[in-house]
């Protein structure tokens, strides 16, 4: 019985403690979509920060809600402390230098807390103390303390909140393009991603319409160089997907005339938005694609346009009436059958 009561009391207390704790929501920034989850791991929703975002000191907005009302009554602030994952920094000993380097590092502090909801904007570089090369996962602890420099307060769990942010500075390896492709309004470019590549955010397909000669060979010195950095002066098409390995381009949209070539190279982008180097480029060609309809019309001695006009216009009116007739027949039959069944 005692064990049962204890279990009940834990069940009753635990949610109330959780609900009293401040909560942090990271708002969308840069090209990220909501809700932003900056953790690592294999979960599809996780989006680590990239080195580029860190170096650019991308401003990240942290919306903190559910702040205890008692925290607003005095000149409390939120102090942000960085630590390894699992370290809450609520104990003073974790924040205070005691002859060695403490496990928690001070990042920044907010202005005085005046409301139960507030927003803090912190630069990505600032979060990592200006060191954007750390390829690791960190826990950022938001502690309600009397002053920014406070290291002595033992912070209650109800006065702390944390988020996990991973800094991923390693881009994936370049993909391998499958070979030349051709088509008219649908030119399918396919590639193989490196073995064991992490879940991706997207792939970028770069197109240089002046990158191939008339025989379909990549011109040396083209803007697209295998193993090189993605260029800025050529067309880029992004295709999202965690394991994207193909893209369909429209020859017309690319501005290619029939029989013209263009050079294509691909990069892949991980969830931290680190972009690989360019794949080895290949040439694609816009061609007139023919098949069943063109062959059929040729057999009839008609152009595809004449053929299409003939079939589209002539049969539809008659067919419409026939379809109505079929429905009518079915309805009559159904009625007769149901009446017959009803009489039995």
């Amino acid at each position, binding site marked *: 019985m005692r064990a049962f009561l204890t279990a009940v009391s834990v069940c009753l207390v635990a949610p109330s403690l959780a609900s009293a704790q401040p909560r942090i929501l990271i708002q969308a920034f840069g090209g990220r979509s909501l809700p932003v989850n900056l953790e690592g791991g294999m979960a599809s929703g996780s989006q680590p920060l990239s080195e580029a975002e860190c170096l650019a000191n991308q401003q990240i907005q942290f919306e903190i809600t559910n702040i205890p009302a008692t925290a607003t009554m005095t000149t409390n602030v939120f102090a942000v402390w960085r630590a390894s994952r699992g370290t809450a920094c609520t104990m003073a000993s974790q924040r205070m230098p005691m002859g060695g380097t403490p496990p928690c590092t001070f990042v920044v502090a907010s202005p005085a807390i005046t409301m139960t909801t507030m927003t803090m904007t912190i630069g990505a570089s600032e979060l990592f103390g200006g060191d954007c090369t750390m390829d690791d996962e960190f826990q950022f602890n938001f502690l309600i303390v009397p002053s920014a420099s406070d290291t002595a307060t033992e912070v209650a769990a109800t006065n702390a909140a944390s988020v996990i942010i991973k800094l991923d500075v390693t881009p994936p390896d370049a993909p391998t393009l499958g070979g030349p492709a051709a088509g008219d309004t649908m030119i399918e470019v396919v590639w193989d991603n490196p073995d064991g590549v992490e879940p991706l955010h997207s792939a970028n397909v770069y197109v240089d319409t002046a990158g191939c000669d008339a025989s379909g060979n990549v011109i040396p010195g083209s803007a697209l160089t295998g193993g090189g950095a993605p260029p800025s002066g050529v067309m880029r098409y992004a295709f999202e997907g965690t394991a994207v390995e193909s893209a369909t381009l429209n020859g017309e949209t690319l501005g290619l005339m029939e029989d013209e070539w263009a050079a294509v190279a691909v990069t892949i982008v991980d969830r931290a938005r680190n972009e690989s180097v360019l794949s080895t480029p290949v040439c694609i060609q816009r061609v007139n694609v023919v*098949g069943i309809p063109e062959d059929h019309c040729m057999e009839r001695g008609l152009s595809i346009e004449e053929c299409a006009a003939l079939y589209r216009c002539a049969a539809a009116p008659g067919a419409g009436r026939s379809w109505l007739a079929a429905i009518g027949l079915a309805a009559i039959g159904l009625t007769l059958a149901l009446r017959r069944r009803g009489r039995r």
Partner: protein
Amino acid sequence: VKRLLAAIAVLAATAPATAQDRTDAAREDGSVVGSDYAVDPIFVPSPETFTFELRVGSYQPEFGPAFEATIAGDLGPFLGAELDVHIVRIPYVGPIAIGVGFAWGEWTGPARADTTTPTTANVGSTGLSLVDLSALAVLRVDVLARQLDVPLVLSGKIGLDVGYSQAGSGGMTRLEGWSLGLRWAAQVALELDFLEPRAARRLDDEWGINHSEIFFELFGSTMGQWAGDQMPVGTSLAWTAGLGITF
């Protein structure tokens, strides 16, 4: 209790016609249990009004020699369903029904690049799709199954075929249109009731399904073959097989 039942039996034997009828009814529904009159209920099948068929088969439209070369023997599959409504039963022959059918098929093959500079690149696929609607008069000859205990039902069908088809290549639809034609079909069906007669009866008692069957059907269609302005998607001979129920 025995005396009581004996008395009831005597009374029943000597009772007027109406009482006799009641006793017969009790025999039929098996309510006189434990007496000399206890019998299996006489099975009274529910009326047969509909036949429904689900089918899969092969179909190749006669769309020209190049089509046949491109699809290289792609026979569909051709998927469909048909509902027949029994209108009248010809004694010792079987029911005449009218039916509506729906079917779908798609045939694809590799497209080609029409270019002066030969390319080995994959340029996509080319294909033809057909949605087929039919209104049919159906004669189901079930006399073998009903009178001679041979579980075969033969059917003949004839009616109107209406098809909507699209043909395209390289991701673009180039041709589309409606086609009309005559549809015929000959079907042989094996009724499955003989495998488990009690289960078949129970199916009728509980669900009103009189018979279930597997069938094989040969058919043809002249869709688009009589008019030069319709897509010729008919075929001289195709087949389907499937499962049917009569209810």
